[in-house]
């Protein structure tokens, strides 16, 4: 933004309208609903194991989160490694 006059406030109308449209649309059509099997299935898990290794540093980024954060996007698939055997 190149100004300090609060002109960003002009976005209030369009974003407010779009947010309301989508909120009500989903309230009626429920396109975003599905069986939440991640939290509704009976899962018994052994303790999680793993490793953490520092490999790099980031300096002076303006991002508030890591690029491509998918920690909570459980259903978003990433590269699948296929081994010969379990």
């Amino acid at each position, binding site marked *: 933004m190149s100004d300090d006059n609060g002109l960003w406030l002009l976005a209030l109308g369009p974003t407010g309208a779009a947010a309301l449209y989508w909120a009500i649309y989903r309230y009626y059509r429920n*396109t975003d609903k599905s069986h939440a099997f991640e939290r509704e299935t009976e899962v018994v898990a052994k303790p999680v194991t793993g490793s953490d290794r520092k*490999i790099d540093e980031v300096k002076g980024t303006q991002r508030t989160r890591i690029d491509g954060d998918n920690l909570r996007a459980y259903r978003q698939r990433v590269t699948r490694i296929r081994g010969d055997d379990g």
Partner: protein
Amino acid sequence: MSTPHRPAPPPLPPVPPVSGPGSPQEVPPLPGTFPVDPATLPDAIREEIEAPDPVALDTAAAELKDGLNRCPKCGATDIRHKPGSDVLVCLYCRNEWVGARVEEEFGLGEGLDQLRGTVIASGARAIDADVASLMTFKCTGCGAEVMVNTESTMTARCHWCRHVFGVNEQIANGAVPDAVLPFRIKKDDAVARIRQFVDKRRLFALKAFKDEFSPENVVGVYLPYMIVDGNASAELAGKGEILTRTYTRGTDKNKKTYYDADVYQVERAVDFTVDDLPLESSRERGNLDVKVNTQNIINTILPFDTKNAVKWNASYLSGFTSEKRDTDVEQLRPRLEDQLLSIARAQVEGSVHRYDRGVRWEQERLDVHGTRWVSMYLPVWLYSYHQPGKNGGLLHYIAVNGRTGETMGSVPVQQWKLLLTALTVGTFLEGIALWIIWAGA
């Protein structure tokens, strides 16, 4: 600064995406959440959203059809399912009984972590394409021969003596399920729940839908599912970031915030078992593309108390319709693996909380050590409404879980009315924005 102009009306995306935000591919929102603070909405909308859910009715028995099969005590065929329970009643001798629970009968609850390979119950075997769907049965009531089209139905009535009989073990090849979970929610209760659901969504509902709305037309349907137990290991690899410093740069008028972070290579592994994961085993029902259908509504009312399922007995089907399974274990395996990976991702989330700037998983690996598949009929009350439109329109469902009463639906929207309201609210907000800017100038 010159006087700001009122911007053009906001572009409103007309169709929700197939995948990503707003689709069933996204982890669904928690129940009862609404993305906009209702307090900021006009009264009529707020009241509709905040209206309490009235308690649904649970009235006395409605009439059900004749029974089928034979009473284990007296041999009479006049058997019916006692509504609201899992019990079968013999109308001749009043004997009551419940089919054996498959959980104990097949030992389904045990040894999940010992599962190896693929265990397939007899009813979950691959469907033999050679089997003709038209079958002839000899009526056990009067001896007449009756033809049944098993493509469309799993129960039939003898034209001569009105004895109802079921397509029990007569059909081999996996077309008959292993187990059935009887309806517990009665029709009146389902009607009441559907009415409540729609009552809370009237303001912007399609006028034709409201005019034609008649929840009494709800039908009880047994839908085919595969209930899967699994024993698996998953491994994940990716990057995580931990914040080390936050600072601002720039002049007073142009301040920007910057972050420093440490980057880690993160690896996680977890061994786990899942118990009774339900997968739609009808191709159509399993297609959750919200752009072309509303099957995600039926998916949403999962799960069921599948532990209470009883051994397949066609007696439970009288008075209801049923759909047949048309996918086999091998065709469902990719969906199972996808869900196991999602579950693994959810399981490890708690172990990476130290990465306060989040984690980007880049690789995942799944080893399925063993699975057990049971084919089951699950009870659903379905109210459907066909919305005319291009490409044959859209079939909207309102579904009630026949055991838990969980209700979900898709109500067609009167687009122009919703757009007009959104634009009106947007214009009002814009007015406030302009006033603030004007006052601050």
